[in-house]
């Protein structure tokens, strides 16, 4: 990206966003085929890309998007119905547009390769050819159908266009024939009634046979839009005052259109009304002229004049004004967003991290020297630093919804490929988490969703046989739970078969034939390398690589993953992740002169270890905590086995909770809460379980951050190596 100029970079970003919006809208259309919002947004994407590409002289992009835009315009005008096929072609168009733009971004001066040209042509043919075949015939039928419908409704006189034609006196002299216009009007619809008025008719002796005294009021029913109707009288413009009042049913249509108008920029009232077709340009120009010509001091606003002149109904104008106001507000709000380079943000977060550390160092010095007057200032500052930390971290928080919606496309494509009917339900998309986490969770999520699509959901025939609805459902859900985010991927497919998994695991030598495993232990086996229960590998999944990678990726984010399943009912994969990777609230403890940080969100309580009340000896590693068995680890002993330890008189038990399980850590001293800036330990400690990272204390020393879950698993393995697999907790 570095070798393209900034304008192009902005362009490429804009294109990315537009195409993403377009894809989302296209997929949205699958559910609600005539959602005007969606259609508009697709049209807008193509239209804007066309415009911007023109600026940079990317003629091939312009040519291609122009075709797509034309088709979309027809869709927008209701001339062409959206169907699954068209959606697919448009999705392909979207991808293709991205491709050719990429080509130009990186090889600006090179012409488009022939392969891309061919693809362009093929897609255009698909777009337009289809429109001839699918759109051509039925659309005329449709028109006819509509026509009859209108005929049926003619009894409702309120549903007519009301066209007033006030011919000027010399209309006939100028070669106008009012009747010919009215006759021509009939080609557009049905004239239900014509009222002829003669307001200027002079006395018979003053009448000039060559003058025209007739005014017409025509009740007209048609599906044509205002512009088309106005065009009928194009030649009469100079000799006739024309007002065209839309029918009442149109009024609702206009209101609807107004509501659907894109809210990207503030437009003038006239422009808005033209855009929805309620007004024509001529009418606006005319009215504005009149407004200017009126020397009267209290000129009426355009809206009022339009209503007065009977060009538009009051509600439409009111709605338009309201809309204008709303757009103004929204645009104001949008201009408050600033695009920031992620690297700059990362740098800021780093600095804040350093600030937190130096704040702690200052705190230490203040306490050490007992400077009571500095104390106040110091505590004010640490409050501020805390606020800065929170705000800085908030900057990186993004909603997970966008990541989720991306899977609509995956589900759409894959289900088509597999011949399955699958819908994706998304809940909790507004849950926020750190951008880096979101980025890194994308791959594991994709894998899990694909797994569900491929292995989980059955074919429609199988589903019907199993008494399930033909259409399978995959659910993506996210919610916050005790300082972590939980992401669930569930499907209502065939579920995991424990026997198959065990058989496979035995075949692979992962477990012994006679080993007794609990259900959750069995399910957890699927995260072992080389285990796939699918007999045949497809191009999606099934090669048995993946689930172990998924697990590793998630654990690299200090998260955990678990599976639950019911044979024949479906599978749920649950992922627990930390909200952020940069700073956590930590709880500092000391064991054998080394300091350790336990993530505060995992600390349940701290209890004093009283050797009188608690029967602790070296053989037994659990205590009775209010009637419950609580296993514990003596941190000092566990970490430094080979050294002799002297236990201090007062030890404390820190009770930690992870998921549903609880455990205790015995430590020598508690140092309380502190803000912990997580420093990565680096590649060297990649394989180290139980230590999640390190932090620099105010004193300049390094303290290690415990990975509670990893530590407990590590301890479990040591107690009973054969249980190494049952790492699920």
């Amino acid at each position, binding site marked *: 990206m570095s070798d393209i100029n900034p304008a192009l970079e902005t362009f490429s970003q804009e294109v990315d966003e537009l195409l993403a919006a377009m894809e989302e809208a296209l997929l949205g259309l699958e559910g609600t085929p005539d959602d005007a919002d969606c259609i508009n947004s697709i049209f807008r994407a193509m239209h804007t890309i066309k415009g911007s590409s023109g600026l940079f002289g990317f003629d091939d992009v312009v040519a291609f998007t122009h075709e797509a835009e034309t088709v979309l315009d027809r869709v927008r005008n209701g001339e062409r119905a959206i169907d699954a096929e068209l959606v697919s072609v448009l999705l392909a168009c979207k991808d293709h547009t991205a491709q050719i733009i990429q080509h130009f971004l990186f090889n600006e001066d090179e012409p488009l390769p022939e392969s891309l040209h061919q693809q362009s042509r093929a897609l255009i043919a698909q777009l337009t050819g289809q429109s001839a075949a699918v759109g051509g015939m039925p659309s005329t039928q449709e028109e006819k159908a509509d026509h009859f419908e209108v005929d049926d409704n003619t009894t409702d006189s309120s549903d007519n266009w009301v066209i007033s034609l006030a011919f000027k006196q010399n209309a006939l002299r100028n070669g106008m024939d009012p009747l010919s216009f009215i006759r021509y009007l009939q080609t557009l619809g049905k004239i239900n009634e014509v009222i002829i008025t003669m307001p200027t008719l002079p006395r018979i002796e003053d009448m000039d046979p060559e003058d025209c005294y007739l005014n017409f009021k025509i009740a007209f029913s048609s599906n044509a839009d205002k512009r088309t109707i106005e065009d009928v009288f194009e030649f009469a413009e100079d000799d006739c005052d024309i007002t065209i009042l839309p029918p009442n049913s149109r009024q609702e249509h206009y209101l609807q259109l107004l509501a659907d108008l894109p809210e990207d920029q503030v437009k003038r009232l006239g422009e808005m009304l033209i855009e929805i077709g309620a007004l024509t340009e001529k009418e606006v120009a005319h009215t504005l002229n009149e407004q200017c010509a009126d020397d009267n001091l209290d000129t009426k606003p355009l809206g009022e004049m339009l209503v007065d002149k009977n060009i538009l109904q009051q509600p439409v104008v009111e709605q338009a004004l309201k809309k204008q106001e709303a757009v103004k507000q929204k645009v104001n709000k949008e201009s408050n967003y600033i695009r920031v380079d992620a690297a700059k943000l990362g740098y800021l977060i780093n600095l804040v991290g*350093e600030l937190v*550390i130096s704040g702690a160092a200052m705190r230490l010095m203040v306490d050490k020297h007992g400077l009571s007057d500095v104390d106040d200032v110091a505590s004010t500052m640490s409050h501020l630093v805390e606020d800065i930390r929170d705000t800085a971290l908030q900057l990186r928080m993004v909603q997970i919804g966008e990541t989720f919606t991306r899977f609509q496309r995956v589900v759409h494509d894959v289900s088509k490929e597999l011949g399955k009917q699958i819908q994706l339900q998304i809940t909790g998309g507004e849950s926020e988490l750190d951008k880096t986490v979101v980025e890194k969770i994308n791959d594991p999520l994709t894998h899990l969703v694909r797994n569900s699509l491929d292995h989980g959901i059955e074919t429609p025939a199988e589903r019907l046989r199993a008494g399930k609805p033909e259409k399978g459902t995959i659910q993506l859900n996210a919610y916050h739970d005790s300082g972590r985010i939980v992401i669930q991927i569930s499907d209502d497919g065939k579920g995991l078969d424990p026997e198959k998994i065990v058989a496979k695991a035995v075949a692979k*030598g*992962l*477990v*012994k034939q006679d080993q007794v495993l609990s259900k959750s232990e069995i399910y957890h086996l699927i995260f072992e390398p080389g285990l796939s229960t699918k007999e045949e590998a497809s191009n999606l999944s099934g090669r048995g690589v993946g689930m172990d990678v998924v697990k590793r990726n998630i654990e690299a984010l200090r998260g955990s993953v678990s599976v639950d399943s019911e044979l024949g009912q479906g599978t749920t994969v649950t992922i627990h992740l930390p909200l952020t990777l940069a700073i956590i609230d930590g709880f500092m403890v000391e064991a054998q002169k*080394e300091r350790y940080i336990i993530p505060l969100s995992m600390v349940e309580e701290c209890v004093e270890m009283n050797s009188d009340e608690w029967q602790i000896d070296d053989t037994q590693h659990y205590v009775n905590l209010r009637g419950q068995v609580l296993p514990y680890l003596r941190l000092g002993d*566990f*970490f*430094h*086995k*080979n050294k002799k330890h002297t236990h201090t008189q007062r030890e404390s038990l820190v009770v930690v909770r992870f998921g549903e399980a609880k455990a205790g850590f015995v430590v020598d001293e508690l140092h309380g809460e502190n803000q912990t800036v997580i*420093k*990565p*330990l*680096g*590649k*060297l*400690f*990649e*394989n*180290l*379980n*139980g*230590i999640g990272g*390190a932090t*620099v204390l105010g004193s*300049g*020393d*390094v*303290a*290690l951050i415990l990975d509670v879950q990893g530590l407990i698993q*590590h301890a479990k*393995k*040591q107690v009973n*190596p*054969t249980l*190494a697999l049952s790492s699920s907790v």
Partner: protein
Amino acid sequence: MNQLIHKQENKTELMAQDQLRQYLTFQAGNENLAISILDVKEIIEINTITDVPMTPDYIRGVINLRGNVVPVIDLSARLGRQSSEITKRSCIVLVQVEYKEDAQLLGMLVDAVDEILEIPEANIMPPPDFGADIRTDFIQSMGRVGDEFIILLNINRVLSIKELSQLKQVADYESGNASKEASFSALN
């Protein structure tokens, strides 16, 4: 120590060809060793080294280097000898090793840093096939200084991240804690 660093900086202005033949000599496990000066980033004195539990002996711990956490390898232990005792003369030599196209900063705990030597190309010999009690692949070559030979270490082998992070499990082995692999092979 500062003198050493100054020396190093002055020499950087010399021709690259000359630099190729400059080596930093130091002691680890009662042996004179050297590495190419181009591998050395910095030499620092020892402050506090925080022990990292559940790691083999040759991983001495981590230090705070201007806000970054850097692992420290006990060179003597890594070469299969006793763990170093920290004395007044102990130093940490910071080196950078490549791993998966990433550079990783590592500290190397040595007993003492001696000097920077220029060894002419002619005095550099291939390593002996056997005889040295250091793994042969750790030795890049032998340098003759006067009547003695100094082992020139291949730092990317000695401090190979891939190996260091792998060997951790062997160490687990040794201390009697069966690793995952161990349990699997036991089951078979």
